[in-house]
């Protein structure tokens, strides 16, 4: 089995006393979570645990092949889902530089990021204590040139722990753009990734004082000053952000009907 050869190899390599840099880079190749602050001793421990895990896994695999070989038929009640493939493994990264903003609601934006190999390398070679930030710019109605945003916000990010972030923004119906970068020793912000522009949804009536109309038969557009709507809507006030989580637990406790649950999430409420 190739697994066996791999961990045997790894054991031998560990005995050659590799440097901390070698250890760290190997660990990353294997997908082990190394933190920048880790000491050599800690990284070695990481490897030892990894090897133990592989050994255990192989033992298990051997046992299961033995047992399935001894039984002539497969258990009939086995239900693999979906369609015969057990939970598939999918990549954690696509090795592309990407910073994507998505609107959650009028005051929240979600950001996620991914890095190319070269960017990851830059990040990994940061001197100890380099601080990484997500910068959010309000770029409503402007062409962003790096320093003309209406407002700029900054959030410290720990790249070892975070792959995405939800942040609160002050303005609904506004354009936001983000950059992910680090601060140099002399206090400069260096951008590594730049995001798309993300518009937060509006949550209040327009201030516009005009109405545009289309006369369909005459195919003519008419623009008139607005007296405001003839009907005054009763707006719903949305609860706290993600407040519906409370509603789910409320609905799930007791004997609420599924349609009530569906109605909480869809179609009944709007806002």
């Amino acid at each position, binding site marked *: 089995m190739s697994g066996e050869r791999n961990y045997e190899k790894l054991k031998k390599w560990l005995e050659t006393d590799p440097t901390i840099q070698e250890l760290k880079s190997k660990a990353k190749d294997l997908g082990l979570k190394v933190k920048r602050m880790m000491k050599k001793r800690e990284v070695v421990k990481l490897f030892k645990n990894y090897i133990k895990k592989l050994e255990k896994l192989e033992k298990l695999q051997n046992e299961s092949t033995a047992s399935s070989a001894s039984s002539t038929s497969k258990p009939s009640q086995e239900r693999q889902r979906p369609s015969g493939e057990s939970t598939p493994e999918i990549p954690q990264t696509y090795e592309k530089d*990407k910073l*994507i903003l998505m609107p*959650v609601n009028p005051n929240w934006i979600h950001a996620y990021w991914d890095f190319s190999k070269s960017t990851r390398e830059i990040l990994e070679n940061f001197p100890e204590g380099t601080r990484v930030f997500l910068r959010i710019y309000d770029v409503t109605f402007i062409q962003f040139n790096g320093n003309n945003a209406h407002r700029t916000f900054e959030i410290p990010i720990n790249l070892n722990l975070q792959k995405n972030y939800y942040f609160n923004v002050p303005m609904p*119906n506004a354009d936001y753009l983000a950059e992910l970068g680090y601060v140099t020793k002399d206090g400069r912000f260096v951008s590594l990734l730049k995001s798309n522009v993300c518009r937060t949804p509006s949550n*209040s009536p*327009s201030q516009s004082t005009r109405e545009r109309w289309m006369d369909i038969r005459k195919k003519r557009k008419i623009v008139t000053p607005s007296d405001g709507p003839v009907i005054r*809507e009763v707006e719903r006030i949305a609860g706290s952000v*993600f407040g519906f989580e409370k509603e789910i637990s409320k609905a799930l406790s007791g004997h609420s009907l599924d349609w*009530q649950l569906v109605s909480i999430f869809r*179609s009944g409420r709007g806002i």
Partner: protein
Amino acid sequence: MPKGNIVFMLHAHLPFIHHPQYDFFLEENWLFEAITETYIPLLRMFKRLEEENKKFNLTMSITPPLMEMLANEDLQQKYIKRMKKMIELAEKEVNRTQKENPRKHKMAKFYYNDFKEILYIFKDVYGGNILKGFKEYLEKGYLDVITCNATHGFLPFMEQYPQAIRAQIEQGVKTYEKHMGIKPRGIWLAECAYFPGLDKYLAEYGLEFFFVDSHGFWYADERPRYGVYRPVVTPNNVFVFARDPESSEQVWNADIGYPGDGRYREFYRDIGFDREFEYIKPFIDPSGVRINTGIKYHKITSKNVPLNEKDFYDIDEAKKAAKQHALDFLKKKEAQASGLLNLFEGLEPVIVAPFDAELFGHWWYEGPIFLEEFMRYSSESKLIRTIKASDIVDKIEKVQIVTPAASTWGANGYNEVWLNGTNDWIYLHLHEMVEKMTEAAKKYPNPEETPSKIKRALNQMARELLLAQSSDWAFIMTTNTSVEYAVNRTKTHVKRFLELYEMVISGKIDMRRLSHFEETDDIFQDIDYTMYLKV
């Protein structure tokens, strides 16, 4: 005399679930339950009203995955098999309940006859494909069937990828045409999710109207003079209807909505769970997992009564309740319409009431009866009329030009149901798949010159991508029911897609794998990967 217009809009949708390798697959039952409890009862209602010469008008979106499932012969056969089992079970129940209780016995006989009739309609009237029924009433002018974006993908999260939006709409239009024989005039956007600019794409595909939630109008770029009670048109010439919050509230509300009435059937007392295991075993999931059979003997009784103390259900009592509620709803709509007519100085209001179709029948068993009675009452009303959305579009003479605000019909009105800590991980993959799909399609821009193996792999990539995009998976992760299935489906489509991508890029197509994927995810036979070139 001017009247108030009521646009009833039923959104019929289920995610594409087909597991051809299995004789029985639990989640395929979602479709079977909806056929038995919602879709066929609706067709029966159309027929009865037609025979009585009652005018009725309904708008329905039947989504592309639902159309593909209803037209799928394997699923049709599985449904027939399931119904035969259910008839067998109902017959056993008729005998068994004779000694148990007269009210149970009455319902057992009812289910036995009802299941037989449903199977007859399914198999003998429509030859297994009930889409024919909906098409029939579309052609007769009672029903307006509109489409939906291809796999019910959440379009606001594709905003930075125009080709992904176009593919969702193009495949939605194409699938509708394949099954309905004509071009769709309107579209229901998945989750009612709109963002300013989306209307441009709809116009490209000749779509004339769509729907938004109420606040889409309230917070629009210019205030609609008549609020949500008249459609508007976007600068790209697409008509928009907005949801009337009152109608939804009256029907849907978890506390005061009609479906909570004590006389209605209790969803959670099903003999699939109530009967002893050995007896019910042949009629549930073969693995022994208990499932709904559709045979239920209890009524809600009162919300405060625990499940094990529910009283017995009576179909005639429930029908009476549905009729009362239909009359109540009519009175409410008439009052609302008169008020609006006054306020609008004689201009006719348009009251739009959109619902998940499956609410009627599946969740609310008596919903189709309510709807039928409402149609009966409203056909005689002097104050309101039911009307199809497309009829409004045809009749309207003057319309305000407005760009609606970004909105959805999800909890709190925006995107958080489809983007939160339970499901945010999927978007890295969904976005990357669009990029890889586009990249691969660009390598083979001329489908006529593309080697057939490569072409098949590219088309299958497009299927996997579309299936992964169903908003249902994110929705299910949020509601915390059947999460495992939703996570698995998402990952499975990502995995298959990436495998196919590697094949296309390397030029080495593993035909065994490809055929396996084609057989398993067998949606959209007419798919054309070059739609991803429309950047």
